[in-house]
């Protein structure tokens, strides 16, 4: 009898909305509200960081080192903090998703400059505050990706090519075709760059088409041609192949010139070649994001980098190809004559910069690239 609920004058009626139901309901509502409001932030502008006098730089690995930052701090008194990214896309994602509000200087590549300009993520540079623009090489005074250098300053440039190990390779590559011709001997000893446009573009070039084609038939032909090379491909690695190439476990790697030259100088067995039918010519630039907290320090950094003496010292230490003519003139002859770093004009003329293609072609590139890497 004690277990039964006896409804008498003293017992409370159970409320229609019980306490447990109420808590469950309100938790669900709050979760839904929170999730619904979060979506707005995806396409909103990134938040700016506080300005505490420090210059925050977002750059590629090997473009600045402690020596450079210390020299800058000694000269101007502004402390420098450097963060590294490994791809333009991850840098763009960070800037767009709101995590890049602290950076006053970023180092986008040429095609990324065009894209970010369209998205209004870069400030228009006040060229009166920049000294040393006259030092730039002729080719970069008015580049196609950024007319009149309105939003960016060219910093260094390079090509994409093949670095091979003489002792481990069935021959010396001269062109992209080498990979297809020696497929059997190169079984799982080739690495290609893990970049959609670079690798598919190289395949297009080996078939005689342009890196920036909008022709669906050409893109599909490149995809099929690349599929034929699959048995020879060990992995799609932009970096990370170095130790295997040095050890002879890989024969040929597709690499950016900035990485390959430093590697080739380490070991006499390695050599970097730019394929005869042409490759991609890329430029890395300095730019000031629209949300930069410390614009004054950013301009000082740009002037510092453009100074010929500083540029020369940086090039000698870090071995990238500079766009600064005055710095180039001061380099020692063995670096000036390095064909990989500074290829002659007849080789450069066949190379092209990668630019954005139209939406249909981008979707095709994406679809074929996914097929190639996921198969």
């Amino acid at each position, binding site marked *: 009898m004690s277990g039964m*609920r*006896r409804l*008498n004058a*003293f*017992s*409370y009626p159970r409320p229609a909305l*019980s*306490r447990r139901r109420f808590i469950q309901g309100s938790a669900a509502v709050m*979760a*839904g509200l*929170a*999730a*619904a409001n*979060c*979506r707005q932030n*995806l*396409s909103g502008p990134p938040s700016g960081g506080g300005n505490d006098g420090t210059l925050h730089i977002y750059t590629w690995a090997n473009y600045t080192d402690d020596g450079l930052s210390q020299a800058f701090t000694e000269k101007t008194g502004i402390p420098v903090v450097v963060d590294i990214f490994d*791809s333009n*896309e*991850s840098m*763009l*994602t960070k800037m*767009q*998703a709101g995590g890049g509000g602290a950076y006053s200087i970023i180092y986008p590549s040429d095609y990324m400059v065009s894209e970010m300009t369209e*998205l209004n993520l870069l400030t228009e540079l006040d060229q009166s505050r920049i000294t040393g623009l006259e030092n730039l090489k002729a080719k970069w005074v008015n580049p196609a990706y950024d007319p009149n250098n309105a939003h960016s300053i060219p910093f260094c440039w390079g090509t994409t090519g093949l670095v091979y190990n003489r002792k481990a390779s069935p021959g010396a590559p001269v062109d992209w075709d080498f990979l297809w011709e020696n497929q059997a001997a190169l079984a*799982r000893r080739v690495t290609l760059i893990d970049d*959609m*446009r670079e690798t598919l573009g190289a395949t297009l070039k080996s078939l005689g088409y342009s890196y920036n084609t909008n022709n669906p038939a050409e893109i599909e032909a490149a995809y099929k041609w690349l599929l034929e090379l*699959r048995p020879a*491909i*060990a*992995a*799609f690695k932009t970096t*990370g192949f170095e*130790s*295997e190439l040095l*050890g*002879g*476990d890989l024969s040929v790697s597709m690499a950016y010139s900035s990485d390959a030259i430093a590697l080739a100088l380490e070991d006499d067995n390695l050599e970097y070649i730019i394929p005869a039918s042409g490759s991609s010519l890329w430029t890395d630039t300095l730019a000031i994001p629209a949300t930069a907290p410390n614009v004054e320090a950013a301009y000082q950094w740009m002037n510092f980098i453009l100074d010929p003496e500083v540029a020369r010292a940086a090039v000698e230490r870090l071995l990238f190809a500079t766009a600064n003519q005055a710095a180039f003139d001061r380099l020692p002859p063995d670096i000036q004559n390095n064909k990989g770093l500074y290829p002659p004009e007849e080789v450069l003329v066949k190379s092209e910069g990668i630019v954005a293609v139209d939406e249909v072609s981008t979707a095709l590139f*994406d679809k074929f690239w*996914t*097929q190639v*890497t*996921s*198969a």
Partner: protein
Amino acid sequence: MAPPLAPSPPPSPPWADRLAPRRWLGPVVLLGPAGLWLLLLLVLPTLLILEISLVPGLRLGQPSGGYGLGNYLQILQPIYLRVMGRSLVFALGSTLLCLVLGFPVAYWLALMSPKRWRNLLLVGFILPLWTSSLLRAYAWITILRPSGVVNTLLTALGLPTQNWLNTSTAVFIGLAYSFLPYMVLILYASLEKLDTRLLEAAADLGATPRQGFWKITVPQTMPGIAAGCLLVFIASLGDFVVPTLLGGASSMNISRLIYNQFLGPTRAWGFGSALSMVLIFAVSLAIALLLRYGDRSTVTEAS
């Protein structure tokens, strides 16, 4: 006439008693911090991913359209199903390898090793976990590459060399190596509680050691086996490092596909979120199985 029954005191309403602080204050204080942490860092982000996945074609930086299931339908293309199938194969293969390799080790540790050394041996076995999994994967590159340790050994013994790097074999080896300590730990915990008197009783009744193993040891440790297998399965389903470094050109799995969606050139966050939800669902399914079959009550009832 009997006196009327005195009215019994009104029954205390059930929920008033639950409102008394002495009943809920203790659990709230103890569970509060962890609950808040889980809510903010697990529940809310998952809900956020779920919401993003329901916007077809959502790309970072572009205005979003309406809701729909387009992202999930996009997953049904053969290439993506293949990637998910490959992830499953990697996960199942590494789970099987870990079980086959880990059970003898755990058995020896729990039942046959000298008692004095047991803890030390256990610590020694999980010592690799103290290093970064990235470094361990790089170590395997050094071991498996054509001029690496394995091939040097094989050449010294006069056997043909193997080229396992950048193939699925290397991925299985790497995954099994990464998660073997977890399997051994869980199996050890389960085997340690094994009641050896049952084995003695079985021997007395005429069972051979093999029958004793399959009919007594395995069923008794089944919850531990289930827990270990499901833990390794969940961990290797979402592993990113080992397939990328050791797998080569044909090793794209679901984690790397998700990474490419978020940080690759297309920045298709909607599609990436849908893939993430599929992965979360698969892992939740595995955890539900774990809760179902990892129940220890079957063990206590038997004893």
